[in-house]
């Protein structure tokens, strides 16, 4: 891009959007849709977060103080579903919408109308899911993994609404990911080879393929449930010749790639931020790409490590243990590359960098506990305890969610044209960092000492650390209101951002004005030679 930099910025852009509500309903602009996704995701993050706080408040001390066990189970279930499908996944789709076209020099996503559909399905899907809370018999209460037959023969009537909501989310994800694939493969600026693409684009390309591969599997498993519940089949009913363990195999064949769907784009975000603030090129770009692809491949062949206690034959246990341990190799490569990028850099520690570094450290802790969980004999002791809860929250909260926050701070000046308040940003970081560790670190120990997950009440020996964990959860939860305030403040005004924003930043999105004009790269940019590699 040579010179599309505008000399002045207005709140409404020149080839601007329509006015009023219909702008958002009808929009096919990737930036508008990205914004919609991000706000939707944040609202789901707050709703899911409130459910987490209900859980942590109940677990603050032994006894049943606030909720009954039936409602507690609804909270754990809905918290998981909303955070996975409503908060983390749409946030990454929002980032992809905003950033992929700008990073590859495309004018928009390849399929703009479908882009609009794939967003607008989501509010209906989640309205339906949340409405189950008010139904007779209550919301789904069988855990976000909804194991049959608890989710079929023994489920509340609202399970059918849950199934339909999951179908809608799946359709939305599949359309969104087809769009990402088509955009990346067809709309790159002339001369940009695949191995020139920023790592965020690479990780999203791979993620989109994962989504297209596994969302139909999820649709399949919920359809089998629907048939069992309403049409007299017995896929998962042992009494009718079916197999409850089949459910788990099919679910986790979706579920394990799903885990990487929620972390690969995070790798991309961090790989953009660390080089900027280390003022040094990303170490080992090629190996980063290969490592991401390896992780994606391995994600398809390790699913049963979630099921070590279902009584598989020893050959199955050993195979899934070895395959799972292998994931540590490409994941290690990524961590080492980030560290090597920081090494001998010239670092500054603005808010995005703080979140990115915290990501590397805390995600690595989650990765190491994942390695421990892969060891089958030890897993028999860890399985379904708080050790597992600590593990996956370490990779999801200070993992995925920290990367999303890092991304928000990093690209907010580009999106809004204003710098966010750095002091408040750092305050938000430190509150989140302390909160998240106080919440989840003790859970490792509660789990090792023997507290199972999904328990509304617990033996007295676990009381102290549960209390600590709950205090941390409230610190973390309420500090996200500060994040909301910082973002609104930044949208409303603030120090004007330059086009480049960060002095070490590389990539096409930094060659355009801040805020990014409503239409960018209507003519393809000329690439600085081999700029991206």
């Amino acid at each position: 891009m040579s010179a599309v930099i505008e000399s002045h910025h207005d709140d409404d852009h020149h080839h601007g959007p329509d006015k009023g509500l219909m702008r958002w309903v009808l929009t096919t602009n990737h930036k508008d849709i990205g914004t919609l996704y991000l706000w939707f995701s944040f609202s789901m993050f707050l709703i899911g977060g409130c459910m987490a706080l209900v859980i942590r408040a109940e677990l603050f001390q032994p006894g049943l103080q606030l909720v009954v066990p039936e409602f507690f189970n609804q909270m754990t279930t809905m918290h998981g579903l909303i955070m996975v499908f409503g908060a983390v996944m749409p946030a990454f789709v929002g980032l992809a919408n905003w950033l992929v076209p700008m990073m590859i020099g495309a004018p928009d996503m390849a399929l703009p109308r479908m882009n609009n559909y794939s967003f607008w399905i989501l509010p209906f899907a989640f309205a339906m899911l949340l409405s189950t809370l008010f139904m007779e018999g209550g919301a789904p209460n069988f855990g976000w993994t909804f194991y049959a037959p608890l989710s079929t023969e023994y489920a509340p009537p609202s399970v059918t609404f849950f199934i339909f909501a999951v179908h809608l989310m799946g359709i939305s994800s599949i359309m969104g990911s087809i769009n990402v694939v088509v955009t990346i493969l067809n709309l790159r600026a002339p001369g940009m080879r695949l191995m020139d693409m920023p790592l965020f684009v690479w990780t999203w390309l791979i993620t989109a393929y994962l989504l297209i591969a596994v969302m139909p599997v999820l649709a399949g498993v919920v359809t089998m449930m629907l048939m069992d519940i309403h049409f007299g089949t017995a896929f998962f009913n042992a009494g009718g010749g079916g197999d409850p363990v089949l459910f788990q195999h099919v679910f986790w064949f979706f579920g394990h790639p799903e885990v990487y769907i929620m972390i690969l784009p995070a790798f991309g975000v961090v790989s953009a931020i660390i080089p900027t603030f280390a003022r040094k090129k990303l170490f080992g770009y090629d190996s980063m790409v290969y490592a991401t692809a390896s992780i994606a491949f391995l994600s398809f062949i390790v699913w049963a490590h979630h099921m070590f206690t279902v009584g598989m034959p020893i050959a199955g246990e050993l195979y899934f243990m070895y395959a799972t341990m292998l994931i540590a190799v490409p994941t290690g490569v990524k961590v080492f590359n980030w560290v090597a990028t920081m090494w001998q850099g010239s670092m500054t520690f603005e808010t995005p960098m703080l979140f990115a570094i915290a990501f590397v450290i805390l995600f690595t802790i989650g990765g190491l506990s994942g390695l421990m969980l892969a060891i089958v004999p030890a897993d028999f002791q860890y399985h379904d305890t708080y050790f597992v809860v600590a593990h996956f929250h370490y990779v999801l909260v200070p993992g995925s969610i920290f990367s999303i926050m890092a991304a928000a701070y990093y690209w907010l000046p580009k999106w809004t044209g204003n710098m966010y308040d750095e002091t408040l940003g750092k305050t938000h970081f430190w509150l989140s960092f302390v909160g998240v560790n106080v919440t989840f670190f003790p859970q490792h120990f509660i789990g090792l000492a023997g507290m199972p997950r999904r328990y509304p009440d617990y033996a007295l020996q676990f009381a102290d650390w549960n209390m600590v964990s709950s205090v941390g959860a409230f610190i973390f939860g309420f500090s996200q209101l500060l994040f909301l305030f910082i973002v609104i403040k930044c949208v409303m005004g603030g120090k004007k951002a330059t086009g480049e924003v960060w002095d070490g930043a590389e990539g096409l999105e930094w060659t355009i004005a801040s805020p990014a004009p409503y239409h960018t790269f209507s003519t393809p940019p000329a690439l600085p030679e081999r700029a991206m590699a």
Partner: protein
Amino acid sequence: MTGTEKRHQSRNGYMVGLKWLIAAVAVGSSWSVLADWSALNMTQGVTEISREVYDLHMLIFGICVLIGILVFGIMIWSMLVHRKSLGHEPATFSHSTKLEYAWTIIPIFILIGMAVPATSTLRDMYDSSNADIDIEVRGYQWKWQYTYLNDDPSQEVKFMSSLLTPPDEFYNRAPKREHYLTDVDNPLVIPINKRVRFLITSNDVIHSWWVPDFAVKKDAIPGFVHESWAVVEEPGIYRGKCTELCGKDHGFMPIVVKAVEQEEYETWLAMKQQEAKDVYETVGKTWSMAELMETGEQVYVQHCSTCHQVNGQGIPPAFPSLVGQGLAVGDLDGHVDIVVNGKAGSAMQAFAAQLNPAEIAAVVTYERNAWGNDVGDLVQPREVNALIVAKE
């Protein structure tokens, strides 16, 4: 962005890094001395297998901690030294084939080092041959049933094991006593130094039978029977829990295993066998209304009240009310039938497998004549027994 810039002069970045590192190690080690690790770590347990598992856990944990210290140490060093505020100039390297090979290949060897002991422990755990005693463990919503399998069915001992903690304690109406939520009415009793095999299955949803001290955790799945085993070396009481979400009282179906000397075990087993015989004698006699009501109330509170509530009001729609409506005030045969055979597609279980005929007769009679229900009729244990026998 600027707050850290003036912290130190750039003249000696490495000294700064070193100072921070020493401080971190000092804080870390003093904390580890103060902490009480026993309440924070996995149990070593009381079987050879559980100790093997503990050792394996500590080995992997140690390796992970070392990797963590190495990686985070380098990162933190870099963050303290390679900062713009100290005037550090960025280097220009962006790859190193040698280094990248090294950190791909070295981890593979570390992983092999972990996989070898893990494999051998797993093989030991999976060898469940040559059992001295077979016990069927059957999960129910929300209790466990233990059956001591015996070639002679009349010698078979079978009983339910459910939570002993009264609801008053978890609803904070009474002080929580020792073993809160970890005590049961009828613990599983096993002899020490015998190879006890557990055959684990479920009657309804998936449960998971976990006793940490034996390193035994196996899912109880309807339609499957899975094996696990333990040789317990020390007499004692070992507590475990259900670890697979199984509905509302998932957190309220603990496991207690009492390991005793062989003689004590035999005495206990003989007593249980006698009890079973006694029950069958009571089935033949004619019970009075008062006897049925008295037994019925006990049975109801223990087996029915988690769903239908102590006051019979239930939690509609999942758990219907029994007061003044439905089968409890309707057709007697239908009432007995639903208790004996359960209701397909609902949480109502077939209690013929859990209760003896006298208990079923008593609880049906109780439900028809309690909380203002005044049907006035009663059913005798022998009638219930005839129904169960006819069905078989």
